């Protein structure tokens, strides 16, 4: 499907949900640890696919593994590391993206893989 410009894309090929297949994740906004919410298992699959969470029997429970994975994701994308599914995090998650994992074989040199200070605090650089 190649088009010289975006206005030449036929209406029939334009999806009704603007964020595509991950649009449903937006329903998880506000979820936090301890909750059990429909759709969290799918989110765990997403995070597994991109290297943030180990393969497991994914359930809809917001467990510690999911919280840790979300924190790592937030760190990599320079978001507030709350471990919660806030709107900003989900807006980032549903964006179209490259299929290459952010964390390969458990290691990453994105923000979450950077060296820490002697106090164990991540050095967080903000690009201006």
């Amino acid at each position: 499907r190649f088009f010289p410009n975006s206005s030449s894309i036929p209406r029939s090929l334009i999806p009704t949900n603007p964020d595509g297949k991950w649009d449903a994740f937006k329903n998880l906004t506000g979820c936090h640890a301890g909750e059990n919410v429909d759709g969290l298992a799918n989110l765990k699959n997403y995070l597994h696919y991109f290297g943030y969470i180990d393969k497991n029997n994914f359930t809809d429970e917001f467990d510690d593994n999911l919280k840790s994975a979300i924190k790592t994701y937030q760190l990599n994308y320079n978001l507030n590391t709350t471990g919660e599914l806030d709107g900003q995090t989900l807006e980032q998650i549903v964006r179209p993206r490259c299929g290459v994992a952010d964390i390969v074989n458990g290691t990453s040199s994105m923000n979450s893989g950077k060296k820490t200070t002697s106090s164990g605090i991540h050095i967080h650089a903000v690009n201006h």
Partner: protein
Amino acid sequence: YSFFPGTPRWPAGKTDLTYAFLPANNLPDSVKAVFSRAFQKWSAVIPLTFTETSSYVVADIRIGFHSGDHNDGEPFDGVLGTLAHAFSPPTGILHLDGDENWVVDGDVAASAVVSAVDLESVAVHELGHVLGLGHSSEREAIMYPTISTGTRKVDLAGDDVDGIQVLYGSNPNYNGSATSTTTTTTQERDTSGGGS
């Protein structure tokens, strides 16, 4: 910038890489030209050259558009979602999702169509993987993992240049001016509050 585990790169003696397109795709010249421009972004900053060849089987870098499951263990998912993927060097494989609405001529920002994806932006990113770069946490970098629809980002940022030059050194003709240009429309659902 980041690298794949083990920091794989193309062998030091192999500086002239060839690339080819999957013959079954029958790509028009306009699409091939997009990749030519994308290769030039990288060759401008490192001492590697990229030349198209008609022999897909023996090319160092093989580019193909595929839909759904295409037998590499990484099935595509239709419109939006995952757009493309590539493998670390020296594998030389670059796959793009054939179901996307790829905009070829660079005016992706001119329309309100939310599913339009700028092909050159994605091509430059994936070639970064082909050369050995992983993802970057810097939003301005080409190697940032996500791209909003209606966005065109084709120029290497300083972070991209720094990373790729760690792997291959600098092109002697590189003048050190990496600029990052991103063009967006209102379709970029940016949560920064700054609008587009």
